């Protein structure tokens, strides 16, 4: 798929997301995460789709930039009364107490801080192959979050969408049956 096609598809999906956005006001942590990811996404698009050459050594910094950005959001937003960003990353459907969310948020923040720091150490001191290994092993962290979300959030959504289409299909079948029988 060409870069413009990806951008158009993505924009369409974001438009759908805007149209179907929840009626509740977004929390400060949601806004901060949106802005942070918007900036990170825009930078990614700038380099990838506009063919801009990346600055020297940028590759080594990339994981640190994203982990420390996340860490900064998770450390700074709760004291400002903006809720817990980890709640949005993990899924705010889960009925945990504020105390539990606070500790989960701290855990995520600490992990991101460490991963960002270790990436710099690995990039500067380990071999390129080892650094690559470290980088991709960090993906397990992301994969875990995806699997968690997939299991507990996407599954019910998929079930509901399936039921919705099943009901629509049944109604259509009844309508067509009546049409042809009359």
């Amino acid at each position, binding site marked *: 798929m060409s870069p413009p096609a990806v951008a158009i598809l993505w924009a369409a999906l974001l438009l759908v997301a805007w149209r179907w956005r929840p009626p509740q006001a977004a929390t400060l942590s949601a806004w901060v995460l949106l802005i942070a*990811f918007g900036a990170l996404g825009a930078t990614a698009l700038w380099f990838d789709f506009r063919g801009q050459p990346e600055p020297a050594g940028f590759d080594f910094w990339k994981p640190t930039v994203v*982990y420390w950005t996340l860490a900064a959001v998770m450390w700074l937003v709760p004291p400002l009364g903006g809720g817990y960003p980890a709640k949005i990353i993990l*899924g*705010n459907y889960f009925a945990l107490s504020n105390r539990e969310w606070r500790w989960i948020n701290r855990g995520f923040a600490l992990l991101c801080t460490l991963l960002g720091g270790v990436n710099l150490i690995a990039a500067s001191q380990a071999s390129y192959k080892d650094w690559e290994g470290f980088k991709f092993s960090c993906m397990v962290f*992301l994969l875990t979050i995806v699997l968690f*979300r997939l299991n507990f959030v*996407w599954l019910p959504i998929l079930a*509901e*969408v399936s039921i919705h289409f099943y009901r629509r299909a049944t109604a259509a079948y009844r309508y067509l049956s009546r049409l042809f029988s009359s």
Partner: protein
Amino acid sequence: MIPPERKPDQVVQLVWPGQRSGLVTLGATGKSGGAGEIFSIDGLPGFVAKVYHATTSPAHLARYRHKIQWMADHKPALPEVPAGCQDIVQLAWPEALILRRSRFVGFAMRKIAFDRTLELDYLLNRRQSAQEGFDADYGKLLTVSFNLASLINSLHEQRIAIVDLKPMNVKVYKAELYVSILDCDGFHIDTEEFRHEAPQVTPEYLAPEFQDRAVTHPEAQDDFALAAIIFRLLNYGIHPFTGVASDHHKYPLELAGRIKQGLYPYGKVAHKSVRQVPASVHEAFPDDLRQLFDRAFSSPGHSRPGAREWVEALSLYASKRSGQISPCEKGHLKFSDRPCPTCMRDALIQGAEVRRRSFVARVQAAPARTLKYVRRTLRQTHTSPFQAALAQAQLFTFRQLAPPPAITTRNAIALEILWISGMLILFWWAR
């Protein structure tokens, strides 16, 4: 006269002390060990023969002959048994040499009645011992411990050590509670006129000072193994060096490694690197026994309690007249003025069983519960099975939480589009 169906190899000469000898025929029993095979002896129902494997080298056989000859001539004095128990065999001690065509091949020893005995190993597991017809209680276990210590003490007094002392080498008479030690031809003998080493050891019962090296003080080794066996007998088979690592200490997988590092968790002063297993009942032991165990497993070899000390300590508890053993409210025998170890163990097992059943029930109910919550999710009374499960689990421990605001499926899809976009961006940066 030799029966015609016997092979010539089965006809051997028995040479008793004092050079009295006679021809006998051996019959296969099907029992075999690492060093040799056990045969019955026609005409001598109270004896069996141990014939070394044909692969044993002539040099080894020569050494065995020398040792067996000495042993047959010097039968040790053993603890006295009551007049009614004279047929009890406390040691499978060599009593006659076996020669085949004038060549030494093995020895004859008194037969241990297998139907009247069981391996001491079985006593370490109450269910196993019950299956073998032995209803173990603390009175019997203490008596068995006392008899074992007495036997070892009398051997030590005659400068004989077992070295490879382990539950598998000890038989227990079910009714009389006397013990019988097997594999006597492997004993260490160190008298003024005769000396023979015992190279065979079992790492799980080997004292720390002899791990990875030769046993230079065989009595000290026996004292360690004896303490380990008594500890296991009284503590439901739990080895004194079985524990749970309590810190980042590199905990050896093998018992031998733990013995070597002295990781004994059942001392009166807790070990900082290892915790006791929850099923242990050592807290119910009297102080004098606990001090002996602590000295046996936490002290260097020279201050380890010897068999004599064990005899003195256990004689109090093995005797009904001493009043040191009394029944608990449920009728189990226990150490007087101490909690009942059987009740302690039952409570521990019952607690574990209740937890296990509860866990199994929850696991079995999980699919149905999950489906129920998914259905609720679709009706928007819950947004996920996990949420509902968590909310349910928190009923008793946390305050009730306000339900999350209801969102429609479209809202949820919108949020997920943003979330997936975020993850893709994260992936681009982190890769």
